[in-house]
């Protein structure tokens, strides 16, 4: 299928043919209209972000002095720093646990239990249909047990949120990993390795993982981005993560809150842009 399409585009003589079937003639004419039509969209999406940065760098309203005071104040606020640390830890734990759970299962199902593939896919994508809010309602009792078994010194540590976060990131990680696994022939690779005397552990770590490395990286970055932005589960289960702390801090100083929100957002933006770069590099490498 893909081979046919490349063949077709190659033999087509005209260098520009648009997806929707717009002709070169009208495409030239509509270029101006297109730019004009995109302006309002750009405005709608840019203004709130600009305002966020603007607000966090002004001492008072519109005509106040430029200042980085709020940004500096983040470092002086122990509550925010602890929440930031916990959220970063949570992101790390969630990625590692979700990968440890998903990668072996997905590979194993492909190799030995292909009948289960649809079930695993359904379960992994199920959290898209069950809103986080519903999950929280049901997780309430389960977290009571977790709190009961937690040693006293770790009481109220938000790190236990990782249990729920693994479920929340599952659909996104599943898709990223599935794309990676689809690009290689897991069965042939592992059969080749096994015929050379490799055990299952070696197959997984030395053969499969290196080949889906960019998919794993992709999935992990997605998980990190999602965990850093998570608010619903943490706030309703009464744990302090980054977003909950930002929200609370707003009552004391809106400026500091907005500065931290902007900082977290910029970090996530960079992360997700890096992610789209990782994905592209993989696909071009595949094309060549």
């Amino acid at each position: 299928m893909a081979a046919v399409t490349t063949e077709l585009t190659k033999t087509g003589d005209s260098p520009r043919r648009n997806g929707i079937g717009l002709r070169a003639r009208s495409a030239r004419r509509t270029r101006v209209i297109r730019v004009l039509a995109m302006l309002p969209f750009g405005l709608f999406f840019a203004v709130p972000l600009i305002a966020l940065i603007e607000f966090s760098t002004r001492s008072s309203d519109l005509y106040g002095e430029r200042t980085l005071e709020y940004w500096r104040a983040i470092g002086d606020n122990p509550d925010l720093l602890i929440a930031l640390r916990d959220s970063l830890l949570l992101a790390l734990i969630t990625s590692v646990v979700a990968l440890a759970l998903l990668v072996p299962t997905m590979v194993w199902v492909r190799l030995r239990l292909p009948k289960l593939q649809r079930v695993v896919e359904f379960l992994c994508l199920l959290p898209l249909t069950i809103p986080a809010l519903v999950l929280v309602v049901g997780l309430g009792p389960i977290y009571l047990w977790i709190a009961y078994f937690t040693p006293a010194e770790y009481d109220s540590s938000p790190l236990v949120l990782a249990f729920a976060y693994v479920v929340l990131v599952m659909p996104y990680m599943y898709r990223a990993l599935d794309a990676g696994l689809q690009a290689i022939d897991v069965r042939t690779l592992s059969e080749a390795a096994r015929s050379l005397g490799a055990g299952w552990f070696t197959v997984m770590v030395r053969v499969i993982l290196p080949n889906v490395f960019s998919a794993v990286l992709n999935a992990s970055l997605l998980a990190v981005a999602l965990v850093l932005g998570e608010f619903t589960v943490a706030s309703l289960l009464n744990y302090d993560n980054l977003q909950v702390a930002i929200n609370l801090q707003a009552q004391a100083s809106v400026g500091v809150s907005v500065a931290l929100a902007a900082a977290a957002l910029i970090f996530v933006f960079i992360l997700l842009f890096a992610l789209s770069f990782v994905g592209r590099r993989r696909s071009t490498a595949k094309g060549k």
Partner: protein
Amino acid sequence: MTSTVGVPAGQSTRTGRRFSLSWLGVVPFFAYVGLFLLLPTGLVVIQAFGTPEGQPTLSNIRALGESYVLTAFWRSIQLSFATAAIGAIFGALLAYLVVSGPADGLLRRTVTAVAGVLAQFGGVTLAFAFMVSVGNQGLVTLLLQDTGISVSGGWLYELSGLIVVYLYFQIPLMVLVFLPALDGVKPQWREATESLGGSTWAYWRHVAAPLLAPPFMGAFLLLFANAFAAYATAAALISQGGIIIPLQIRAAMTSETVLGQENVAKALALGMVIVVAVAMALYSWMQRRSARWLQ
């Protein structure tokens, strides 16, 4: 498996054991999903029909009939419908502008990357971003007041405000979902229509519109479910009360004052999951249908 023909009887038990050993490999996954996804969902369903002491009751479900709950449901539906409709129309328009743009792909890559980020963007930061742009002390509000136009930011904390804020992630989501559908529309169809004597209007009416209607409707349903289930943005924007169902659930969960009301949250959650599940099921049905046409 031709090798099973004529093998000694002992061989089959070995295959049987290997079979069960393969199953061991997926136990951790199923155990985890069972404990942290299926169990909580099951608890919601079961406890929606029970008292905190575990006695079966319909009183939680009956609470769904209370006028304040019905009003919240109605507002949630209005919010979801409005943001899904507006988001679908403008998202489709933006996707079309991208697809019909230059073929070098720079515009497209940029828009896809940005849309990928913004579709997941919500919660506290998004609420803040709108407060500081169109809230009472917001950038746009102040700029407009400077030019003598009197505006207030109060609308932001009502249903109309939620609609505008939700569009910030609904439109990008639509772009992401609708772009592949537009890609599936082949330039040959346009050219075939023209060579058969059809005008641009005939092409849109007889070919493009019928082909794009299923994916458009599917995307609308996805957006509807997405808005219906969204909590964080609304919660950060509106800290009190329950104008929509997600905020009602918050109120029911955090109300420790009203005894015997704990499980009303579960009934509300059950109502929500039913609405979302129906919309998502219709969405995936539509997706499958249009995948046959637009690959």
